[in-house]
Each structure stands twice: as C-alpha cells, then as structure tokens.
C-alpha cells in the first residue's frame, strides 16, 4: 500500500480525479457562484459585513 502511494501514479490519478471534479463542478454551474461572489466586494472578507 505504502509503495503505491510512493509512486508518481498515485499523484497522477488524484490529479485526474481533481480535473474530473472540476469539470463536474463547472457542469453543475458552480463557477457562476464563484464568479458572482468574486466580482462583488465581499463585505465579510474585508471585515464590514
């Protein structure tokens, strides 16, 4: 098991899963939520909201 985690293939597999998750998130419309939050001044982030 530990040998599996030491090989670069484990990292490559996780990276591919990450890319697939990104694709799923974009397909679900999550990017629009991120965009809406990021283009407006986040009052909570700056300590006012």
């Amino acid at each position, binding site marked *: 098991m530990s040998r599996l*985690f030491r090989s670069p293939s*484990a*990292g490559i597999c996780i990276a591919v899963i*990450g890319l697939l998750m*990104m694709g799923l*998130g974009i397909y679900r419309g*999550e990017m629009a939520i991120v965009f809406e939050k990021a283009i407006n001044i986040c009052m909570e*982030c*700056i*300590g006012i909201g």
Partner: protein
Amino acid sequence: MVKRNINEWKRHRVQALWTLLTNSYLTGFLQGKIYRGNLKKICLPGLNCYSCPGAIGACPIGAMQAVIGSWNFKFAFYVAGFLMFMGAVTGRFVCGWLCPFGLIQDLLHKIPFPKKITTFPGDKPLRKLKYVVLVLFVILLPMFLVDILGQGAPYFCKFICPAGTLEGGLPLVLLNKSMHSAIGWLYAWKNLLLFVTIIISLFIYRPFCKYICPLGAIYSVFNPVSVFRYRVDKNKCTDCEACAKACKMQVNPAENANDLECIRCGACKKACPVKAIR
C-alpha cells in the same frame, strides 16, 4: 548561509512576480474598486483575497465557502477538484512559491528581531489547528449555520482571515469614504488579528501557514503523494542533519522528505552537502 540566502531571494522573486501578476488590476488600487472581468471565475492557487483591488482571480478558500454556503450547492466540486489537482501535482509548493500571504510573512521574518523562535512547547500539536480551522470554519459552519434562505456566510473570511484584511479590507476602506461609516467591531477584530499575525511573523517563521491556514492544510495532505516531491537518496545521505537545520518549517527531510509541513522552499536541497535530496 550565503548559499541559502541566494536561494531564498530567487524564490522571493518568483513569489513577488506571481503576486504582481495575479494582482495586476492596478486601476483597482487607484479607484478603490475591484476587477469584475471573466478571469474572476478562475481560482488562484494561493491565499489571495478576491476583494483585493488588484486581484484578477478568485481565492480558493473564499470560493469554496461561497459554493458550500450557497442555497443550491452543498459540495464545491469545482474548487475541491482544483485544489486536489494542484495538491496532487505539487503538494505545498504553492505555499512556498505562489502564495502572496506567504511572501508577506517571509519578508516580515527577515526583519531583525532580538530573538527568533524556531520551536516552543506545544508547537507540534498547535500545527493541527489548521485542520480544525479548515473543517469547522471553511466546511461545517458555511454548510450548516445558514440563514432563512439556506445560505451560509464565509465564516473563515469573516472572522479569521488576516489576508482579506490586508489585501482587501485596508485598501478598500482607505480608498472608499463611503465605507468609513460602516466599519465596526468586526473590522477592529480583523485588524487586531492582522496586527497579531504581523507581530508574531517577526519572530516565528510563517505562523499563519503553520497554525491557521486552511489552504495549507488542504495542500499538506497531498505532500506525500504529489507528482513533484522530494526524494532522498539514502545511499548518499550521511545523516549530518544539515537539511533539518536549514528548514524553517522544522521538518527533517532525511526522516520524511514529504512531511505535511514541508512547503517545498528548497532550503534543504541547497543545504545538503552531498546533494542527496532531489
């Protein structure tokens, strides 16, 4: 010593260049506004407040809380996938080379101070605090502590993040007179946290990264499996511990080259007299 400094300044140049590149909306600093273009859909790898007037991308921790706290989504596949990808490829390389708030702490630590503290009783257990901050403030509270519409606030940004205060809060409040009347106890609290972070950074190396940062907590779990990571040639290693002495994150690369605390700064590689770390 000289060798280590040369290496550090090379890294700081990369950090500074990346910070400038990802905060290149200079008009924002002049007008007290933030960038509202399409690039804001894309997450940046480091802790970079999207309310910084210069920011051209989104902070992944802020973005994650925004999606988790929205009424229609309870899991952030886009942001989690992005962080998994970055972590799986580079581990905490982002912390060492591409995080603006990491750069600020690096530079603060260079300021001479009577006594620099490398470790103290409770240092190791305190490093686990960042995982508590991640689970509690970035995931659970935005998910479950919601308003009547089912929306959760970005609790980490709201109550903890000093990067948001420094990069967004201070410049925006200074540049917008209309915001002056809106500041209250929360603004004072966040400025206090920023002040404390700055002071501690003078004598402890990267305190925010070591103990609080949820982004570092996420990337750290990928350190042992990331594609690009350190490897120690045990045949060459003489156990001289030069690498451990050079590490400001108090990692011993000879024992575990991909410790969760390693930020891939490269100090150990430079310090190794027999070039055993690759």
